[in-house]
């Protein structure tokens, strides 16, 4: 078993305590999706504003463990301003980082690499990927995604 310090690195603790880009988005071009992990009860809502194939804004809300909160926070920081094509590539790279033993340390992931320690804890991988899958659901559904409401 790897050291717990690998899992709970300073950056992760920081982002779990003070998540960046937390909150709702509101606007014509905004979409949201809800993610839920029924095993642990974690819930996340991801809000994304895509214009001309570019992620203009990205936020999240919800309750979760340190890993899922930090992962969502880091994701919002990393993907702002990226094109949908870049987002898909990073989704794939992040997924590989979480699941593959010999994932090439993808430079493009930058700060997200602090989450690499999660792959030694298989039952926690879902915590780290929940926000990513939720984002993908919001983007893939496009116009069919549940529109953001401010009710």
């Amino acid at each position: 078993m790897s050291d717990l310090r690998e899992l709970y690195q300073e950056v992760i603790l920081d982002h779990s305590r003070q998540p960046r880009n937390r909150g709702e988005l509101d606007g014509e071009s905004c979409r949201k999706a809800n993610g839920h992990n029924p095993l642990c009860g974690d819930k996340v809502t991801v809000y994304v504003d895509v214009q001309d194939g570019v992620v203009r804004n990205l936020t999240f809300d919800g309750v979760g463990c340190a890993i899922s909160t930090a992962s969502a926070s880091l994701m919002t920081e990393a993907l702002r301003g990226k094109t949908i094509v870049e987002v898909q590539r990073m989704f794939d790279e992040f997924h590989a980082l979480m699941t593959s033993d010999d994932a090439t340390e993808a430079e493009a992931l930058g700060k997200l690499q602090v989450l690499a320690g999660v792959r030694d804890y298989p039952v926690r991988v879902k915590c780290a990927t929940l926000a990513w899958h939720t984002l993908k659901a919001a983007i893939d559904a496009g116009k069919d995604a549940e529109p953001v409401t401010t009710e």
Partner: protein
Amino acid sequence: MDTSMTRSAGPAFDALEVRSDFPLLSETIHGKPLVYLDNAASTQKPRAVIDAVSNFYCHSYSNVHRGVHALSVRATEAYEGARDTMRDFLGAADRKEIVFVRGTTEGINLVAQGMTGSMGPGDEVLISGLEHHSNIVPWQMLCERTGAKLQVARIDDSGEVDLDEYRRLLSPRTRIVAMSHISNALGTVNPVKEMIALARAAGSLTLVDGAQAAAHMPIDVQDLDADFYTISSHKMFGPSGIGVLYGKQARLEALPPYQGGGDMILSVTFEKTTYNELPYRFEAGTPCIEAAVGMGVAARYLMDLGFDRIEPYESRLLQDATDVLRQVPDVQLIGTARNKASVISFTLGDIHSHDVGTIVDSEAVAIRVGHHCAQPVMDRFGVSSTCRASLAMYNTLDDVKRLAEALHKVREVFRL
């Protein structure tokens, strides 16, 4: 009171000796000796149960109730012998009242399914706010099928059922009351005897989910006067995949068959089938024979140890364990009922239970984290999940101290 429950008025209870009966408890996890505190989820198995299942496979295995050959007779005797043991264990009046099911969940579903034809709009089912999903969802499904209404007696801040509200909700419309004997999420011991008497006075049937009780206290279904009482083998040191539904003979006879198939019939023609007598009417198909045999051995093991010795030991351990965990800074107990057994549910500061679970696991301490299949209980206390340490008779205060040390490590990692 069944005398088999109290006959061993022997020496004081020796948890370490009992522990040595359980091979798995000597395992090391991540190079450290295992501390197993997840007994409310499932219990470990004593050598006697492991050997009984193994011996049954090696020497007695065959199908039951079918063949005339020697092995079939041997297997049937072992299976039916287990039924007799379970009758003793639950204090039932007759072996016909002991139905083997897959577990508590199936026991509850069997009754809920069976009541479908006799219920309709205007009828009510009453449960408590403490229930496990398995004692909520089958009743919700029954209500959806029949138009009946599900009523819930709330719990107070300590995790006890509000008996005043329970009394208010009982009415001539109440057809069945379903309650847990011990809450799996909080450890609250419900006053089931009193609750059953009140339900009976209101003309309602009663079902007790005894899944959490069977390993911790003597059960006497006749003394409780429960119409139905159901337990799972794997939570009382027996194999998984088997359990018992007890039902008063008249109540079981009033229920239609649960599943159709072999063994539950007397005769079959394409025009008409005559159903078998109790309890076989509810045991369609080949049962989990070896698990039933193992369950009987587990029940015998518990009766030989004697709940008169197990209960005081566990009661003291729970109290001491609670004191030890209370001393860990930022531990907040969830569920402080006056009468509790086995379970200590808690949160640690604002650290999510899954983070706690991962870190204490690195110290080889196994606890359950999450919602414990009791989301309404979590909602009631305004938490999404808790950490749960659940004790069994083979645990000692040293186990709890190891958990406390591991919780200090969690605080360290999270810089609390």
